């Protein structure tokens, strides 16, 4: 499973766009990039998944450059309720990588009024 590196924390203000970058230099050809969001004392929830270029859903966008050695989760116009920990995972799928998918420490995003 490719090792990922994310900033430990980020601060933002309501209404701003937030970009969280994840580095995964050892990503394999068949690996996907998946982001989860976790609120305090709750289980993480799936946000978005992508393989290359750009993926967008109703919650976020995921930008993946051609070399796929990094990816950026983009949250448009954040609100206070977006304050959470964001995890970046890289792997072909969680089944084959179960046991290595530790979720890391994630990025703690704090949105201020």
């Amino acid at each position, binding site marked *: 499973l490719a090792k990922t590196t994310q900033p430990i924390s980020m601060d933002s203000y309501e209404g701003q766009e937030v970009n969280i970058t994840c580095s995964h230099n050892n990503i394999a050809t068949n690996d996907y990039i*998946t982001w*989860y969001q976790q609120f305090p*004392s*709750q*289980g*993480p*929830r*799936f946000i978005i*998944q992508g393989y290359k270029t750009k993926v967008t859903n109703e919650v976020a966008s995921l930008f993946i450059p051609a070399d796929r050695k990094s990816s950026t989760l983009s949250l448009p116009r954040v609100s206070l309720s977006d304050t959470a920990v964001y*995890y970046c995972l890289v792997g*072909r*799928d*969680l*089944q*084959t990588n*179960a*046991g*290595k*998918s*530790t*979720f*890391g*420490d*994630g990025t703690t995003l704090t949105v201020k009024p």
Partner: protein
Amino acid sequence: EAGVTQSPTHLIKTRGQQATLRCSPISGHTSVYWYQQALGLGLQFLLWYDEGEERNRGNFPPRFSGRQFPNYSSELNVNALELEDSALYLCASSLIFRGETGELFFGEGSRLTVL
């Protein structure tokens, strides 16, 4: 449709005791994963069950064990509790299609406190 449910929500035990945590996956999901999350830290993989079999295990001592029942619900047992076992224990389930795992759906977790 009901999500992943875990019980109990909170559990307080003393050192040396045993704790049993339970998880019911989303209907139709055959895979159940257990994670440990100590306060302020990331999730550490514990166990993965699929179709009643233990498929993989994280780097935890043997006193962490579990099982999956025919209805795909699962139990996590922690024997000889230690203070550092205090954590949020999260269960997740997923659907496997064509051999690949879909997204994980997590429960709200069980908060275990060891005194």
